[in-house]
């Protein structure tokens, strides 16, 4: 039985400043479904990108053996040639092409450059049959639901004669029914000798189909559990995923929490494109003076969407609900009004949404509050320089001068520029979305210190973070979000990683008991 189809040995992958994978070993037996689990940022996706050649040979250390032969993939076509197909979380289908056109994209059934449509279409029909999808090969992708698109992706993998199928969070955007179907399909493939690697946050699914489970944490393999020998509980998996040293990573803070300064009630938001999809459902949250409130949940749980919809309806349509500041209803229907009402939102994606990279540090810091440094529409440049120099010193932004371009700063310093911008707008309520993502440990500590200082100055802070230790380390109260709903709320003193993780991961029914 121990016929190993894939073995990855001592894989190490570093990004500038971060070790994403540290000596990871991982192997898959022929004809099994192997689940790969771990927190956000544990290194699952990175490992799969190394495997499929997205990170080409030479950019990582270690060896990969597939069917007994060493592989040195330079790109994704090489890995696909040997039968290794990865299906990403973000589907890679072209929306305005038909199923058949997508099916053989890059792999066209053609003679002398002329596509044989008859063969393409009949082959497509055959493949769709195998994945149990009853659609015409001529249907445009854009006219299909996500569940069906996922099946098309799998059929596409079959067209490439897949031997090992890698699925990155395949059910993240599927409903119950479609998820069920997809998992059935994986079990069927298993019968036909196709192995799968399943990356998933939904532990119930993992438990249902996986033959073995490998747990990654902080870029290292923690353990591999064999599900056939003994029954593995979800708690057992969670314990493997969390449980790390948590001492002295967070600066202490003297707590001085006052009255509620901001509150939203019955907040509902719909997706801007798929208008019948609800991204926030009946959300009620509040923040007190001097309080740091954590918003925990997986990626895609709707935290950023909620935060941006509160920040001047910057996301979503058909937003309903009311917002209160010091008990009075406020209008936050535009970003301008939200800022005027003392709300600030520091984005999770500082490069795309936070900074004007091609401009100077100074211009970025003052952008949200130009009124403060100008009179009658004319910018007072000496004053701007004085103010921005102050922020540079206060937040310890390392730059050659405040006239340096934001582009040339490190991630941690860019984040400090974003924070400076919002501090300069002097808000009362600060929503910080993943403020420590992608920055090193030292800079993280500095950001925590700034958060603490703001709280002790009496501001209310809502912290969105995917890192549980961070949420537990600096928050006073924690909300847990899943599928656009608040599914749990607890004081930090009563919270533990296991407890929060349980709310995050387990299915709805369990929580409501």
């Amino acid at each position, binding site marked *: 039985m121990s016929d190993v189809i894939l073995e990855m040995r001592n894989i190490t992958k570093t990004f500038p400043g971060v070790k994403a994978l540290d000596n990871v070993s991982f192997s898959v037996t022929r004809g099994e479904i192997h689940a790969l689990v771990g927190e956000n940022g544990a290194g699952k996706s990175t490992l799969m990108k190394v495997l499929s050649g997205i990170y080409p040979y030479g950019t990582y250390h270690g060896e990969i053996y597939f069917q007994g032969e060493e592989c040195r993939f330079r790109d994704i076509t090489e890995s696909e040639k040997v039968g290794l197909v990865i299906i990403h979380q973000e589907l890679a289908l072209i929306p305005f092409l038909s199923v058949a056109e997508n099916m053989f994209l890059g792999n066209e059934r053609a003679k002398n450059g002329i596509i044989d449509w008859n063969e393409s279409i009949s082959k497509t029909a055959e493949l769709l049959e195998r994945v149990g999808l009853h659609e015409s090969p001529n249907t445009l992708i854009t006219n299909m639901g996500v569940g069906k698109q996922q099946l098309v992706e799998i059929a596409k993998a079959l067209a490439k004669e897949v031997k090992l199928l890698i699925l990155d969070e395949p059910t993240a955007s599927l409903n119950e029914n479609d998820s069920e179907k997809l998992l059935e399909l994986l079990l069927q493939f298993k019968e036909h000798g196709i192995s799968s690697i399943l990356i998933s946050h939904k532990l119930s699914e993992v438990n249902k189909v996986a033959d073995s489970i490998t747990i990654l944490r902080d870029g290292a393999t923690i353990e591999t559990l064999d599900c056939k020998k003994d029954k593995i509980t979800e708690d057992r998996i969670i314990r493997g995923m969390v449980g790390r040293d948590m001492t002295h990573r967070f600066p202490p803070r003297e707590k001085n929490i006052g009255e509620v300064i901001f509150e939203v009630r019955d907040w509902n938001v719909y997706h801007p494109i798929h208008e019948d999809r609800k991204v926030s459902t009946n959300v009620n949250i509040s923040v007190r003076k001097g309080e740091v409130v954590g918003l925990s949940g997986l990626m895609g749980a709707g935290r950023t969407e909620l935060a941006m919809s509160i*920040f*001047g309806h*910057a996301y979503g349509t058909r937003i309903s609900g009311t917002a209160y500041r010091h008990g009075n209803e406020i209008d936050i229907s*535009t*970003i*301008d009004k939200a*800022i005027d009402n003392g709300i600030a*939102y520091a*984005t999770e994606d500082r490069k*795309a*949404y*936070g*900074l*004007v*990279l*091609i*401009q100077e540090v100074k*211009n970025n810091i*003052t*952008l*949200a509050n*130009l*009124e403060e440094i*100008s009179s009658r*529409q*004319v*910018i007072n*440049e*000496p004053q701007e*320089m*004085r103010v921005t*120099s102050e922020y540079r010193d206060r937040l310890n932004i390392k730059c050659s*001068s405040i*006239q340096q371009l934001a582009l040339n700063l490190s991630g941690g310093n860019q984040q400090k520029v974003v924070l400076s*911008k919002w501090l300069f*707008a002097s808000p009362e309520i600060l929503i910080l979305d993943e403020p420590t993502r992608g920055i090193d440990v030292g800079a993280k500590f500095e950001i925590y210190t700034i958060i603490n200082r703001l709280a002790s100055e009496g501001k209310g802070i809502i912290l969105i973070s995917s890192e549980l230790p961070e949420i537990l380390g600096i928050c006073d109260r924690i909300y847990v979000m899943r599928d656009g709903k608040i599914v749990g709320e607890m004081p930090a003193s009563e919270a533990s990683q296991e407890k929060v993780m349980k709310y995050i991961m387990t299915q709805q029914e369990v929580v409501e008991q």
Partner: protein
Amino acid sequence: MKTLSTLFKNNVREYGMLIALIVVMAFFQFQTKGVLMKPVNITNLVLQNSYVITMAMGMLLIIITGGIDLSVGSVVAVIGALAGVLIVRYDFNWVLVVAISLLLGAAIGAFHGYFVAYLKIPAFIVTLAGMLIFRGLTIALLRGESVGPFPRGFQNISSGFIPDFFHYDGFHITTMLIGAILSVLLIWLDMRNRKNQQKYGFEVTPFYFFVIKNIAITAAVMGFCYLMASYKGLPNVLVLLFVLITFYAFITTSSVIGRRIYAMGGNEKAARLSGVNTPRLLFYTFVNLGVLASLAGLIVAARLNSSTPNAGDGMELDVIAACFIGGASPMGGVGKVIGALVGAFLIGVLNNGMSIMGVGIDWQKVVKGIVLLLAVLFDVYNKNKNA
């Protein structure tokens, strides 16, 4: 010395263009045996380029937002046609017509801006449509023929000169006086700026460089005024241009609106999430260019002393080229008024110099195309070198 080389490195684009302009001018000065720099030709050069420069100020703002406006040539034509019809056929007072034209220009800009900013239709398409619409309307208004001539007052918009208060024969003393005042003003501004920078501990250029720079600028200003004064003095258009250039240089460097336009062009989403009302801002950049294009339309009509169906034909390309030669980026967020100005002059000198030399319109276009390509190539080269 170190600061001098960093200064050059940071402004290699501006200095490069300025040097290119000087080289090109020297070349034509030599090739035309001194005709280029003759007072009468300099006056012509200014008049010929006035509409390109006028529109380049507005086009630059739109290009900084990441957009483009292809319609300006047609707007020049339709405004000229309207002015011609109202003044010549219907005997309207020309001052009133100027006011109507500017308002209509704003309305045309608002028309484009509404589609681009609020309905999110790409600027290229909207203004391409506008280009066709307004050219068509021009021909309809003029019924396919030229309309003219205009009354003296209207003609003076472009062919008049500022009055001389000293009445000294053969030399325009007011012009020299204005030049002197301007020189003093420029030196004072530069000194104040330098002091401010020193106060905040920024590196400044060595003092001797500061002195040399100001002597050079003063010499250029006074030399130019001397040339003008020995002909008929400063043209009205030049005064208008000076006001526009100063105004837009100020807007782009020191105003809240300018800062927001650059932020929007550099990263629209970040600007919006910082509370900038980006659609409204975009809308007003189009309104602004509409007004400037109508102003250019009036200048063109006044200069030709008639409204013609093909006025301003292809002018949008000269305007856009001036901005790109001057270092604006088609991706948005980058561009300077002074760059667009130098770009416009470079094109103007090329047009003028080659015409004097007798180079045909065919080869003129080839040369202009090559210059545009070289200027952008220079940008790309610099960017790659710095990265």
